[in-house]
């Protein structure tokens, strides 16, 4: 909402200057977006008379002029085509800052001729975009006057951001009222003369709505004007309209726009001669109806849109935009003026469906003063008669009864809700100035809400009105008490899992990223997503259409972007949601990561080594252990989802729940992203990790073995497809008490090993607990291991 300083003063009687007003507005909740005062930069520009115009001796298009500011003569080189002897121009002295050119004028020599100043165009003064020719002031202008005074530029423009609840402040008067309530001045009385009208209106209203739809148009007013002269509006009006971004068109149109800004009350004028029949009917459109709007576009209407129609058809989209057919132009001599109240939600629906954003729609949607239609009939009549002459008819109207809202208010609630101590008298005064009517009965205030405040409907609203005008700075600062709690963490175990996991991964070299929760359809399908219930109806681009089923595609894409920037070795991780369906329990938390490229870079010390499956497996296990996954219940399976390489991927499960998928990403997907090297990735689902229920902080007693452990090494020849884990499990079963650790230290296939077989070398740690083991005991354990590998896995001890 834009207004000018002088416009505001039409409604506000105040001693305060603009600075004080601009400071007060945000304190009332009216945020000031900008204040533009072009006059600030233009005070030094003065009117001068052009006394001589001589051709520049060295340049065809330039003239050398002598100008006079009433005091001194100046020689100026000027290139404007319209410069002529006797004209009054706008002159900049040497040393003046020219805002339109963004420099300070110096005296100069232009092609051999001295130039001590400049004759200016409107663009150079930033008054308009006009740059063809210099400004020509009226002949009567005296020399040496500031252009600010001559052109009346001394009217700063204030732009205010109005919150959606304050429809009443979408007019200058509403803003003035709030300012007056704050004590900065008084609200002037609105100049209204009730004009009864000389004749019956040429046009009448009809409402063609079902009874239960009366709320769509609870009130509509109109009156006719005849014998009008519609020419360009007066320049004071044009200037103000231009200042608030309204394009001047003709007196009649400009008056309706002026009143809309002035009172926040949109109006519509029909050219009576173009209306067919004697009635205008408010009704709902039908599917298939077309509407030819003022903006030159044709709209297809549906069944639910509120329109106004004559006997020919629809020619007004109620509260949003008028029609082309009955529009006012410079030849118009008779108009019918409409002021109505329409249902804000109906207007919003229609406006959104047709994508029309008009000033009228904006105001209707935010709620108009219910009493404004009758008031504006008189207000407009006065202005139209003054500017366009002619005659005014009586008012025609249809309306439902509407009583102002009443709120029962106990003033003690002010302190209870806001903490502000304020005297009742002060509260009452604030309410009164805002237009509320209060009947005081001890602590029972009967408050009648003014017709322009449709946003007020409860005690909390009343409290806000009072403390807002009283000033938020008088709200006390109270610290939240500590009595209610003992020191406790903000995070619960679930939050801690993400927190720890990201840290473990980052210490292992991963860089945490945050990527969008949506991705494109192809990627969604690749990772088993893309179902209808997770597709966006209105995606921002075709790249961001589906909720992600996995974080991995995002990470792969992120890696690809880095590779394109010349980075080869990449470890990225992210913790965030993945979506299996659209209900809350189908949103899972996932901790994911990928690695590409080299684990070690070749340097003077060592050769390079690429990331492999086992790096990822170790990342996953380390992360799982640090976020509370019990190591003894983790089971490994080879049925990872199909976006992994089937031979190089695995899954950890606890019971039937998948805790993690990991391994090499399927080469088909890697190739799809144009990646040349293998991508290793994982996804952990921490929600599936059981959280131990007991809250004990004490740990079980530490038991350390006092006897020294013994190790024995074996190499077995087994089937080359046998999973090594089986060898470990089998060997372990030889003596579950004494064997505490088994490590595979070599895998070999090839020379000296039969076809289809491999050699697995293990180191077994045997930990005696009660007494030292004899050689005989150890031999017994060794032969048990050999035996069990033979019987369970048909493995044989490798002859060395």
């Amino acid at each position, binding site marked *: 909402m834009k207004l000018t300083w002088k416009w505001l003063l039409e409604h506000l009687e105040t001693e305060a200057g603009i600075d004080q007003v601009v400071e007060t507005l945000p304190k009332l909740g009216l945020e000031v977006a900008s204040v533009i005062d072009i006059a600030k930069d233009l005070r030094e520009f003065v009117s001068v008379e052009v006394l001589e115009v001589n051709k520049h001796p060295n340049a065809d298009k330039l003239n050398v002029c002598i100008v006079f500011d009433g005091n001194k003569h100046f020689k100026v080189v000027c290139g404007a085509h319209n410069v002529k002897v006797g004209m009054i121009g706008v002159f900049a002295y040497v040393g003046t800052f020219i805002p339109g050119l963004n420099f300070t004028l110096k005296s100069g020599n232009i092609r051999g001729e001295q130039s001590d100043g400049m004759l200016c165009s409107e663009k150079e003064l930033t008054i308009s975009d006009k740059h063809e020719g210099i400004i020509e002031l009226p002949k009567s202008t005296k020399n040496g006057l500031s252009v600010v005074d001559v052109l009346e530029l001394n009217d700063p423009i204030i732009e205010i951001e109005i919150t959606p609840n304050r429809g009443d402040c979408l007019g200058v008067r509403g803003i003035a009222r709030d300012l007056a309530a704050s004590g900065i001045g008084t609200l002037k009385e609105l100049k209204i003369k009730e004009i009864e009208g000389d004749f019956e209106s040429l046009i009448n209203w009809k409402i063609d709505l079902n009874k239960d739809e009366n709320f769509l148009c609870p009130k509509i007013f109109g009156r006719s004007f005849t014998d009008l002269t519609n020419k360009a509006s007066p320049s004071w009006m044009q200037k103000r309209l231009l200042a608030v971004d309204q394009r001047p068109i003709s007196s009649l149109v400009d008056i309706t726009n002026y009143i809309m800004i002035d009172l926040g009350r949109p109006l519509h004028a029909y050219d009576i001669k173009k209306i067919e029949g004697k009635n205008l009917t408010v009704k709902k459109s039908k599917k298939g109806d077309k509407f030819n709007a003022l903006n030159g576009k044709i709209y297809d209407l549906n069944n639910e849109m509120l329109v106004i129609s004559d006997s020919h058809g629809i020619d007004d989209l109620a509260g949003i935009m008028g029609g082309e057919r009955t529009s006012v132009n410079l030849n118009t001599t008779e108009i019918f003026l409409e002021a109505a109240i329409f249902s804000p939600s109906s207007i919003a*629906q229609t406006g959104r469906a047709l994508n029309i954003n008009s000033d009228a729609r904006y105001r209707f949607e935010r709620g108009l003063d219910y009493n404004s239609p009758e008031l504006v009939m008189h207000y407009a009549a006065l202005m139209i008669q003054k500017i366009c002459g002619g005659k005014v008819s009586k008012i025609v109207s249809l309306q439902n009864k509407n009583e102002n809202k009443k709120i029962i208010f106990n003033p003690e609630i002010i302190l209870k809700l*806001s*903490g502000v101590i304020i005297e009742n008298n002060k509260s009452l005064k604030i309410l009164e100035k805002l237009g509320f009517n209060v009947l005081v009965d001890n602590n029972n205030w009967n408050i009648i809400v003014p017709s322009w405040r449709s946003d007020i409907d409860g005690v909390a609203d009343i409290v806000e009105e009072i*403390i807002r005008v009283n000033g938020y700075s008088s709200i006390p600062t109270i610290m939240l008490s500590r009595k209610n709690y003992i020191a406790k963490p903000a995070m619960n175990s679930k939050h801690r899992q993400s927190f720890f996991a990201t840290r473990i991964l980052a210490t292992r070299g991963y860089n945490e*990223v945050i990527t969008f*929760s949506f991705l494109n359809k192809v990627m969604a399908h690749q990772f088993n997503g893309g179902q209808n219930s997770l597709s966006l109806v209105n995606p921002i681009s075709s790249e961001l259409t589906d909720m992600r089923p996995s974080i991995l595609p995002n990470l792969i894409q992120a890696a690809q972007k880095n590779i394109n920037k010349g980075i080869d070795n990449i470890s990225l991780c992210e913790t965030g949601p993945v979506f299996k369906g659209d209900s809350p329990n189908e949103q899972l938390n996932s901790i994911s990561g990928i690695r590409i490229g080299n684990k070690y870079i070749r340097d003077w010390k060592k050769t390079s080594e690429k990331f492999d499956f086992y790096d990822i497996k170790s990342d996953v296990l380390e992360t799982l252990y640090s976020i509370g996954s019990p190591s003894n219940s983790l089971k490994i399976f080879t049925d990872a989802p199909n976006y992994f390489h089937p031979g190089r991927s695995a899954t950890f499960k606890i019971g039937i729940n998948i805790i993690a998928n990991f391994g090499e990403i399927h080469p088909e997907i890697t190739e799809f992203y144009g990646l040349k090297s293998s991508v290793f990735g994982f996804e952990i689902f921490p929600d599936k990790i059981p959280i131990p229920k007991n809250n004990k902080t004490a740990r079980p007693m530490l038991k350390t073995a006092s006897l020294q452990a013994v190790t024995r090494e074996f190499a077995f020849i087994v089937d080359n497809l046998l999973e090594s884990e089986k060898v470990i499990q089998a060997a372990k079963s030889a003596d579950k008490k004494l064997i505490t650790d088994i490590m595979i230290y070599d895998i070999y296939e090839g020379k000296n090993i039969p076809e289809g077989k491999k050699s697995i070398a293990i180191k077994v740690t045997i930990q005696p607990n009660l007494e030292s083991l004899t050689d005989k005991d150890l031999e017994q354990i060794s032969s048990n291991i050999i035996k069990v590998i033979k019987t369970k896995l048909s493995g044989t001890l490798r002859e060395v």
Partner: protein
Amino acid sequence: MFSGFKSTMTNQIKEKLIKLSEEIADLISCSSDLTNLDEIRVSSFGKKGSVTAYLKNLKDYDEDTKKEIGSLVNQVKSNINNLIETKKVSFRQDLLNNRINSEKIDVTLSSKERDLGTLHPLSRTIEELSAIFADMGFSIVEGPDIETDYYNFTALNIPKEHPARQEHDTFYLEPDKEGNRKVLRTHTSPVQIRTMEKLNLKEFDEIRYIIPGRTYRSDHDATHSPMFHQCEGLVLGKNINMGHLKGCLIEFCRSYFNVENLPVRFRPSYFPFTEPSAEVDIGCKKEKDGSLSIGEGEDWLEILGSGMIHPKVLEGVGINSNIYQGFAFGMGLERLTMLKYGIPDLRPFYDSDLRWLKHYGFLPIDNPSLHSGLNGVFS
């Protein structure tokens, strides 16, 4: 025997011994290494050693001579042993020096590259917020990103066709069979509703929650991202008023930006789910180089929205607004992060550019907390 002869003979033996001792001393000083030194020791004091021979011969002499020569032999032995020990120390020193000299390396050669990864600035901010609010007794709750119209709008007093809805630029999911379409939450406020719905009204006295999370609006330009992060706050009790809102948020702003005298301003504003509502600004100053510094200055920066929970919202979840009242607030986390850490541009937050992550990211071991600090000083 004449005593004169005896003394002559004794003297001769003495001279020989001294000569021998001098010879051995020469040998020691010319010895080449520890092995050679050991040979000298053996050839002198071994079973067949040259000095040992004198001790063996002692038995042939009378007591006085025995005594005299014996003492001299012991003296020689001790002297030579000292010389050998000294020489040994010097050899060991030489050996060590040689080893040290031979072990010299080029310390300017590069060491292993730093292999610590980094944490994203946004998750850092969430943790800083959590630490500050934990100190004020808040705990974290979360809610789903995919919401129903009810939780995202209606329950928050934003009915259909309300102008505030249009400011939300909502993403919609494909409608289900009944024609209901879910939305991507446009703010974290629906979690307020979900949280309050779960309260046991008989037991609770006061709650303090923060709700960080992803939020979505269909807007994409230099200062808007279709996905962004918010943190919501919710305090509900029997004696909570707007003064508490003010106290809580002033403390938060000053702690987060680490500026003790940071000016914090509360302005009336409008949110459908709070009444009265307040926008919160902090003081700032535009520096000559165009950058912004947070603190006392002539400008204000809007950083969060807040207000007393609207009675309609409370009643909607079955809470008696005559007994309970509270406040809520919401802030954009990207903006907070950018302001605190001088990050000029929004878009790279989601671009996963390793150069950006390493530059603006944080050390994984730097855990924001009240005792270790909240401002990431070493990163």
